[in-house]
């Protein structure tokens, strides 16, 4: 091997290492930028959730009737709006899986607010018949192939009932105690499962007889 070829070899090696190092530097900058954006998002969501909770508690404590249906409805829509914002951020963050710990934190915030909304919906359903809405709590495992048809059925139901039906998607393995408590309370013994208006239903029934579990079902596929 002559000297000029040796020089070329070292030149190419140095340039390769330089480019790879530079790439890592660039990627790190992008990663840090993304992480700081996500951190800010999580903090903002956390603060908003806290703010909303305090506001709701404040109105609960100062209202003459804290079981007033109008108050419950206002609080419910406030939580729903916040949940919608978090959902959008979770979707975006899910596409970029490099920031796993932040994504889990964001997902947990999403689940907490889902549960908060669900609790308020149950309260409203029991106290305010004029505002009564159907709900589906969908409990799913990660990496679930058998869930695809269930999700299709739930989506179809959502298309059919529109705002009359609210959906709560909860990943069972998110490691949140309140989720485990709900699963135990309702005696759910197999995931995926759905809780429709406080009744636990499994696969086949969800697909074929979902309508039967809706409030005010008239037997013709519509709600009166």
């Amino acid at each position: 091997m002559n000297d000029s070829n040796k020089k070329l070899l070292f030149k190419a090696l140095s340039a390769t290492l330089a480019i790879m190092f530079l790439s890592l530097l660039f990627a790190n900058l992008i990663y840090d930028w993304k992480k700081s954006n996500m951190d800010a998002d999580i903090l903002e969501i956390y603060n908003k959730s806290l703010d909303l909770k305090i506001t709701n508690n404040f109105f609960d404590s100062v209202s003459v009737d804290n079981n007033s249906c109008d108050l419950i409805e206002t609080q419910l829509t406030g939580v729903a709006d916040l949940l919608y914002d978090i959902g959008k951020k979770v979707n975006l963050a899910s596409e970029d899986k490099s920031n796993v710990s932040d994504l889990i934190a964001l997902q947990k915030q999403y689940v907490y607010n889902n549960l908060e909304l669900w609790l308020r919906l149950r309260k409203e359903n029991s106290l305010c018949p004029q505002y009564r809405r159907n709900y589906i709590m969908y409990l799913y495992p990660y990496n679930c192939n058998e869930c695809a048809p269930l999700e299709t059925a739930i989506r179809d139901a959502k298309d059919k009932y529109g705002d009359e039906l609210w959906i709560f998607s909860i990943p069972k393995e998110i490691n949140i105690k309140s989720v485990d408590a709900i699963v135990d309370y309702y005696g759910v013994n197999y995931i995926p499962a759905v809780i429709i208006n406080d009744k636990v239903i499994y696969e086949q029934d969800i697909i074929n007889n979902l309508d039967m579990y809706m409030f005010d079902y008239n037997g013709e596929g519509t709600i009166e």
Partner: protein
Amino acid sequence: MLFCLGVHFQTNKNQSVQEYILTSDPMHLDYILLFSVGLLLFFMLLYFFAYLDARGRKDPKPKKYPGISIIVPIWNEEDTIKETLGCLVNIKKKYAGDFEVIVVDDNSTDNSYSLTKELANKYKFIKLVTKKGKKGKAESFNEATKIAKYELVACVDADAFPEEKSLEYIVGYFADEKVGAVTTKMVVKDPKKLVEWFQHIEYLFSNFLLSAYGHLESIYVTKGPLSVYRKRVLKKIGGFKGIDITPTEDMEITFRIRKAGYTIKNSIDAKVSTRVMPTWKKLFWQRVRWNRGSLINFTKHRDMMFDRQYGFFSMVMMPIITITISMLAIVIYYLIFNLINILVNFFVKMYWYAYLKIIPNPFIALQRYFEINFAYVVSYLIVIIAFAGLVWIITYAVGFYESKEKLKIKHIIILILTPIIYTPAQIIFWVSAIILQLTKYKSRWR
């Protein structure tokens, strides 16, 4: 080993289920791919620097013009033989030395023989001989070499069209007694179909590689459309090896020329245009043959690897080419791994749809693939691939410059389509070649 490593990256028993789901993304699987991209980047930069170093080099002007015997092996070439011989007639007019053309007909069943005979009657320097021995290009060339009158013998494919001054550019190299063969740049003659355009772009890129390999004293193919050999060297090494030894005789011979102590050069200005495979099917079989040839030749001459007497070729290029071929295993692993994943998921989903008697909504299934938010899809790998892509584009640009090709919109479109269509096709060619080689499927020359 590499296969096991890939799996290991994905499964870590200490992870909780949700972490496993969230971390089973390409970032963690792609350390091997990252390594491969780094290696490819290194190879590309090495070739690029070699090219820059060689820039300004000129073909040596011949002090005398040695006699040349041009050998054209033919078998059913009625579509192109007249034009090829026409080009050789033009070369003869420009070439100052002695010159003869020997056309070896391998018992064609079309009009190739009569068309050639017509021209042989018209021009005295064209000889037509009918092949006697075994079928094949290598055997035709060897038979013709025996009757060749001159010190230099050139191989010209029957569908190749050398430029008029090609030989003038080439023969100067043979003033150096150590030069055993000289090869040339190639371009595609009148590409029309998409498959021909892909090959055209590929050939332009290969012209850049040829310049780089030439400078690194590492040319390992003397191209069939036009290469010139010293007859004495061919005799010494026993000529070309037939299809029973190697399906790519023009590559195999370069190893033996080196072993005999000679070098192989590339001409800067000589150029030959050639017809290429007009259909994907024909291209498939041609590339399978070439790729199997590479596997056979590198295995057959593995004794040259890391042998200092063969210089840069054995110390660097042979390992590089071997690694590049081995890296295909990684690509194949990726393809198979992802394909199995996709298929398993698909069939399990279909089972559940069937079990629950529900019709899947294809729109929703497809929608997910288009929901990617690109602002968030940036990783180390993508940045490095971007750099490698930049180097790749530069090398293609150099290929254009080297081939004296004018850049057209069509070139750019084909260039964009290449990594989407042609590169995956090349992987398929390689996979097929490896499978056929392992199963000892018989090679076919035609």
